[in-house]
C-alpha cells in the first residue's frame, strides 16, 4: 500500500488536502499538488495526518 501511495506522490511529510468523502465508509478524495486522487476508506484511514495550525 505504501508503495502505491508513494508512486502517486503521497509520502511522509507531503501536504495533502481532503476535498470530499463518500458516506458509509466510501472513498475519500484527496489532493496532493496538482493531483486529485480517490482512495478507498480502508487505505485512507491508515494515512496519519497532522493538521497545520
Amino acid at each position, binding site marked *: 500500500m505504501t*508503495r*502505491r501511495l*508513494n*508512486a*502517486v*506522490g503521497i*509520502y511522509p511529510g*507531503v501536504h495533502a488536502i481532503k*476535498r*470530499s468523502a*463518500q*458516506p*458509509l*465508509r*466510501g*472513498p475519500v*478524495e484527496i489532493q*496532493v*499538488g*496538482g*493531483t*486529485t*486522487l*480517490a*482512495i*478507498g*476508506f*480502508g*487505505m485512507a484511514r491508515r494515512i496519519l495526518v497532522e493538521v497545520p495550525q
Partner: protein
Amino acid sequence: MKRILLMGNPNVGKSVVFSRLTGARVIVSNYPGTTVEFTKGRMSVHGEAVEIVDVPGTYTLEPTSRAEEVAVEMLDEGDVVIDVVDATNLERNLNLTLQLLKSGKPVVVALNMWDEVHHKGIEIDVDELEKRLGVPVVQTCGLSGEGINRLMEALEEAKADTLPHEDGERWRQVGEIVMAVQKVRHHHHTVLETLSDLSLQPLTGIPLAVIVGYICFEVIRFIGEGLIGYVFQPLFENYWAPLMMGLSEWLGPGTFWHGLLIGTLFEGQIDFGQSLGLLTTGLFVPLAAVLPYIFAFYVVLSFLEDVGYLPRLGVLVDTVMHRLGLHGLTIIPMFLGLGCNVPGALATRIFETRRQRLISATLMAICVPCMAQIAMVVGLLGDYGARGLVPIFGTLAALWVVLALVFRFAIPGEAPEVFIEIPPYRFPYYRALAQKVWMRISHFITEAVPLVLLGVLVVNLLYELHIIQILGKLLAPVVTGILGLPTEGVAALLVGFLRKDVAVGMLAPLGLSLKQLIIASVVLTAYFPCVATFAVLFKEFGLRDMLKAAAVMMLVAFATGGLLNLLL
C-alpha cells in the same frame, strides 16, 4: 528495427502524442487507463524506419496492476524512451522520470499539455529542467501537434543514466528540482474545478449523476430515432426498395439466388426487417436499424470520456458497488459494453486482480446488451412502450445485482479498494472527439457488417439444409418446454452467436406474443457472448475460465428465461 517507447503516468496524453507521431488513430479519453494494451505504429526518423509503441500509463516501474506490468515488460524491449510528462503536474510525473533515468535506457522528456500550463498559473524554466535532468526536454501539445517535430529531432540526443540516486531519496530529489524550475502563481477556483467538487460531493453529486444520466438517455434517443425516422428509413424505403424490387423480378421469386439476396416477399413486397435476404435485411439491420443508435451512443459516451466524468461517477457509486462486492470503476467496462461488449471486456484490465476482472467481464457478458442488440430490441418492442422494454431491461438489471452478490460470496476474495486519479474536467477538443466517434463507427462498419451478412447467410443455409428444423425438434424440450418459445426460436439462438442484432431481428417474423418477445430478448442477451466477445474473453482469461463463465451464462440464461415464462 529501433523501437521507441512512449511512457509516462496515466492520463498525460501519451496516446495523443502517439497518434501525432504515427498518424495512427487510437482511442484517447480523459481518464487514466484508456490504453490497456500497447499499440504499435511505424514512422521514419531521419530516413530510418522505427517502431513506436504506446505503452499503458504507469506511476512507477514497480508495477501495481496488470496494465503497469505490461508497461514494465515493454521497457526491457525498447531502445529509446520518450517520457511523456504532464507539465501541469510536474512533481508527480517526475517521480517516474527519475526512475526511467536510472533504467539504463536513453530518455527524452516531452513536457506535454504545455498549452494548459499558462491557464493554471504555472511557469516552468525548461532550460533549467533540462540541465538538472541531463536529457533533452521538449514542450509539446499533443492535441495541436505543437513541438512534435522538435521532439523527434531531440531523439538523437537521448541519454541514459544521467541522474543516479537512491530509491528512498527520489521524492526529495524531485522536490528540489520542482522548487528550482517551477513557479506557481495563486489562481482562483475555476468554474470547472468547482463543478468537479460538486460532482464528487455526495449531496450534489448524486442528483447531478441522475441529471447527466437522463440527459444522455434523451440525447441518444433523440439522435437515434431522428436518424432512423428522417434519414435511413426513408432512404431505404424510397430508393433502395424499388431497386431491390427490380432485382427481385429479374431473379424471379422462388429461385435460389432470390432467396439468398432478396429473401421472402410479404404480400409481394420486400419487408426490410423480415425478408432475411443479404441485400435486404442484411444491409438494413446494420445500417438503418443499428448504426444510428451506435452513432448516438458513441457521441454521448465519447463526450463523457473526454470531459472526464466517468471516474467521478465511479467514485460516487463505489460505496454501493462495494456492498455488491464490486469496484466502483466497474461502471467503465459496463458503459463501454453498452456500445460493444468487446471493448467492454478489454476495459476490465484496469482492475488489479484477476478475480475482479473475471467477475466484471462475466457480469457484462451476461447482463449488458450491446447497442446493436438494444437498437433491435427497441425496434421490435417499441410499439409496446414501457410495457415491453421495462421487463427486459429491468430483468437484466436485477440479474446483474443478483449475480454480483452470488459471485461475491461464491468466489473467494475481496474487491480491491478504489485507487484512482481524478482527472481535471476538460472541454472536449471537438476534432479529437469527432475522430474518436468516427473510429468507433468505422470499426462497427468493418467488423460488424460482414458478420451481419454472414449471420444472414448462415440462417439461409441452415434452413436450406433443414438443420434448423432438425435442431428445432431436438431442442424443443428446452426452447418450447422451458422458455415457451416456438421451435423456430432455435435459429435465433444459433445466429445469436454470430450477431445478436440479427438474432433479435429474426424474432420479428415469428409472430411472438409480448411475453415471448420479452423472454427471447432476455435469453438472447444472457445465454452466450457473440463470437467477437467470446474471442476476447478467451484471450483474456484462457480456456478454463472462459468455459466456466460460459457454463454460468447458459445456466443463468435458461433459468431466468424459465422463471420469466412461469411468472409473466
